[in-house]
């Protein structure tokens, strides 16, 4: 869904009943639905975390917590750069906006690459999306999250492209704000996943 670029932005004088932008309310509503999306997948994982299959490893036998911790830190830092990007555009520093948006996208790409690398290790060790209910739950959950990060990266790069073409003036800082909202949400979901899936010990 294209929730970022609003070439047909409403005139700034448009009064709304709450004083908030329509797009902001829509983004929050969308993020509310995403909470339930990830909630259902996390619940599935919680049910299946110990449902293995003979001959295949359980999740906790293959996790590399230090590696994933570094990945998580990278994603966390991307939220910081996102905030810096928003601050830049709000004070009219367009070069800075692009720098921080690209930094956010790069950190996001690093995270996704780390995930993909981890997955190849797991598959090599016999923990796959098909190997057991635990495997199915883990890979679908983390892949959906990775897909969300990827969509976020595409939105960030779109903002950079718009800024380079002069189509992202300070008046449209809200576009950066709403992409930021989405990005922070995806990061928070990762914090929850990392805690519940990786850190909470198996029985």
């Amino acid at each position, binding site marked *: *869904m*294209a929730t*970022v*670029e*609003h*070439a*047909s*932005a409403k005139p700034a004088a448009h009064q*709304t*009943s*709450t004083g*908030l932008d*329509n797009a902001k*309310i*829509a983004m929050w*509503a*969308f993020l*509310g*639905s*995403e909470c*339930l*999306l990830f*909630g*259902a*997948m996390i619940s*599935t994982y919680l*049910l*299946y975390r110990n*449902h*293995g*299959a*003979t001959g295949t490893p359980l999740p906790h036998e293959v996790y590399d917590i230090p590696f994933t911790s570094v990945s998580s830190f990278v994603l966390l830092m991307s939220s910081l750069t996102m905030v810096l990007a928003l601050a830049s555009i709000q004070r009219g520093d367009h070069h800075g906006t692009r720098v921080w948006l690209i930094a956010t996208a790069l950190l996001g790409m690093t995270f996704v690459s780390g995930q993909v690398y981890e997955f190849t290790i797991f598959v090599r060790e016999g923990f796959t*999306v*098909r190997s*057991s*209910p635990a*495997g*199915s*739950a883990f890979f*679908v959950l983390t892949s959906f999250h990775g897909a969300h990060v990827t969509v976020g990266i595409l939105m960030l790069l*779109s903002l950079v492209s718009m800024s380079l073409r002069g189509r992202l003036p300070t008046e449209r800082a809200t576009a950066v704000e709403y992409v930021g909202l989405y990005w922070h949400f995806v990061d928070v979901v990762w914090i929850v996943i990392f805690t519940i899936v990786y850190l909470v010990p198996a029985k």
Partner: protein
Amino acid sequence: MTFYALGLIILGLSSTVAAVNFLTTIINLRAPGMSLMRMPVFVWMTLVVQFLLIFALPVITVALFQLFFDRTLGTNFFSSANGTSDPVLWQHLFWLFGHPEVYILILPAMGIVSEVLPVFARKPLFGYPVVVFSGIAIGFMGWGVWAHHMFAVGLGPVANTAFALSTMFIAVPTGVKIFNWMATLWGGSIRLKAPMLFSLGFIAMFTIGGLSGVTHAIVPSDYQQTDTYYIVAHFHYVLFGGAVFGLFSGIYYWWPKITGKLLNDTIGKLHFWLMIIGFNLTFAPMHILGLQGMVRRTYRYPKGYGFDFWNMISTIGGFTIALSLLVFFYNVYKTRKEGQVAGNDPWDARTLEWTTTSPPPEYNFEEIPVVHALDDFWHRKYVEDKEGRLVPVPSGAQDPGGDQAAHATEAHSEGHGIHMPSQSYMPLLAALGMPLIGWGLTFHQWWLAIVGGLVVLSGLYAWALEPATEE
């Protein structure tokens, strides 16, 4: 069943996106003076439904993806070679969606009834804040009852008891609404036009369906009822007798506003009576059949069980419903040209849509109204004298900005500085990719799925980049 999984994912996307849209509209685009507690009940029920959609659809979406992956990729969510997956997970996820879904189905109809009854009783809705609050309560409580669809699965006595209690509790706000509707009618000046008949039918039929629902809430009773036609009777009473009757009430009520012509009321009454008789002939016997032990979801039943008679009655009822629909379609056809012209306010109604022309202009209102009270339009038309009788206000029907009929034919949006959003190809283009993705994934034609994905993406990008207006 891959069509099932992917089809419902696609339909779920449609409803989720619409829900975000309607929710934002109700929260943010109300006319000046229209606080939340001055909104019509139909709008309140719409708002609750959008919240339910936003939170319930993702849960079934997850279940459907998991089902799709099980079928296509060999994952182990619901079935596995070595048996460590749990098929009951499907039921939990499905009914976590499925129960809020039934409130999604019924609340709009309840909202419609809450609009129609006051107009055709010429009395305000009794207990507006309580009706609103009950709708909100149903929205919240609906999340806590899902496993009443799973009493026979073997969840254990603790779980069964908890859900039995929550299910009995949720009957309370529903009952509160019914009492408020009855109180609205009490002492009113009742006009038995077609919209009113359907709303009254709703109250009667939905109450019956609700009562059978309460009997399911008691676990030992449900052990006998579940998977029998008694359940089929229950949900058809609430869904057909409830939702469908309520929706037809809305169709007859708002038809003149939408088309500018009234449906023929006599034919409408014939439709109603045929439909309610046919409906009861079809579904009432199912209570008996169910308690006699007729199993549901099976293509035939054996001779010698005594099910024959009521099944035949039920079939006759089904065809009676079909006949009633033919009557409705005839009404639509007949009044296309010859129907009575409606005017702005044919029912002497209470809410803002009746202040504008029938049908409304593209921009809906000449001037956005300023709202001073609940049922603002009604209070502009009538005041009450010392004995509480209605006294028409001489120029009340012409509200400020209300010479709608006079201006409508001359007005152009441009001339009045009203900018309406421009048309666009892109929503259609983006949507076209969805079935392509679906067919591609179903038949493992990955190229087709990718083509579909590209169609969607290009539609979305073009959507974002197209100019704002061509005025």
